[in-house]
């Protein structure tokens, strides 16, 4: 091989334009020839910079939150495995929160729900307070500040969601809407309870189709002017979900709510795979399930 042929191979390999057979030749070459390996490294450094020649664009600003939301969810998982003591602790708090959510919507009267939820909230607040103290102790004993902070955030989020559910239930002007399944969502049953006063709602769904790998369900509000993503979720093992949804800042009250299938972390547009959709009622609901 002449020096020119050798250089040609290294340059093309770095640029990624070689077919497999010739790539194998280069890989064999750099394994035994440190000078060739060094040359290739220099080409690699250069070629990665070619990216900077692309015209600069900015992604949709909502992408930042989607990335951080997925990362946050992933970190919870990492923390659980990082500290076994945090595993049962987080699970107990989340279980308390889920127990609170579970009483809404399917099969109970409004007053009964409110009374039960008040008790749940009080219990949950006590759990949060006790857990916060426990976390503080753990931090003093050397646990990671980031771990403690994350647990606190989870607890606060659980409590805030629970309080919102109560506020939505208590709002006499709350509107209960039925979301109809599309062909893709055949078999699903869903309702959406919206409170303008709370600026939030709860999506209740069951019988949701199994998600493709690395996918989530994404909830969308359409206020008549624009469609906004308001969150993602994965159903529980019974293919059901109860999800608190907050109104995005600057968005009007939703006129239509839809649920679509999206890549993990969510998408910037509704896309074609809508499984549920329904207009939000304009008149308050009597709210009996």
């Amino acid at each position, binding site marked *: 091989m002449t020096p020119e042929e050798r250089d040609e191979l290294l340059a093309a390999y770095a640029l990624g334009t070689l077919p497999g057979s010739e790539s194998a030749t280069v890989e064999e070459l750099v394994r035994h020839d440190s000078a060739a390996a060094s040359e290739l490294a220099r080409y690699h450094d250069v070629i990665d910079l070619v990216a900077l020649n692309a*015209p600069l664009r900015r*992604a949709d600003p909502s992408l930042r939150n989607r990335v951080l939301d997925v990362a946050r969810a992933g970190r919870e998982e990492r923390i659980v495995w990082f500290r076994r003591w945090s595993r049962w602790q987080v699970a107990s708090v989340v279980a308390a929160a889920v127990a609170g959510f579970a009483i809404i919507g399917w099969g109970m009267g409004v007053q009964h729900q409110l009374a039960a939820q008040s008790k749940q909230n009080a219990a949950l607040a006590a759990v949060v307070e006790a857990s916060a103290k426990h976390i503080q102790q753990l931090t003093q004993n050397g646990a990671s500040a980031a771990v403690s902070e994350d647990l606190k955030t989870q607890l606060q989020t659980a409590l805030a969601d629970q309080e919102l559910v109560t506020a939505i239930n208590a709002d006499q002007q709350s509107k209960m809407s039925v979301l109809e399944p599309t062909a893709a969502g055949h078999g699903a049953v869903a309702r959406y309870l919206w409170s303008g006063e709370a600026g939030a709602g709860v999506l209740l769904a069951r019988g949701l189709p199994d998600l493709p790998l690395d996918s989530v369900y994404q909830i969308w509000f359409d206020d008549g002017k624009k469609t906004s993503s308001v969150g993602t979720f994965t159903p529980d093992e019974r293919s059901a979900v109860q999800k608190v949804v907050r109104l995005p800042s600057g968005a009007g009250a939703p006129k239509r709510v839809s649920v679509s299938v999206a890549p993990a972390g969510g998408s910037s547009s509704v896309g074609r795979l809508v499984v549920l959709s329904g207009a939000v009622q304009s008149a308050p609901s009597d709210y009996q399930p």
Partner: protein
Amino acid sequence: MAGLAAGRLDALGALYDRYSALVFSVSLRVLYDWQLAEDVTQEVFLRLWQRPESYDPTRGRLLSWLMSVTRNRAIDEHRRISRRQRSEDEEEPSFELRDQDATGDPAMGALLAESRRVVRAAMALLPPAQREVVELAYFGGFTQTEIAERLKVPLGTVKTRVRLAMRKLRDTLEAEGQGRTP
């Protein structure tokens, strides 16, 4: 990066603010599809978040690593969805950002702007035929054979153009302190 390894979300947010415009721009340049480019951008940052050890600082700059991962992922996606039909003269998405708007970090923004200036100048120095093969290979993910077929020139001509272009780019960028010191 230390913050990322420690699992700090604010570190991920800072990295996103600093590099997302570049990552997204490269994805978009390869895919010509805003939604797919956002998906790739998300994957790149989540990969860094989930496996911060996959970036080895001893093997180069974070910027280079990000660009490499982004480009590879975008090209994989491009191949997967078989959208090879776009033509090079297809209209690009409008509204190019100014360099200083590409990052939320003014100091880093200035550094990136300087790197971009140098790289664009180096690319502009290449004869158009050489620049074309580099862009087709880098952003299009085409092999030399595919480039030869596309440009209707002999394979040997493409190989020569690649070699000359890469050598010239390397020399120019190293002289500007952007590459690895030989």
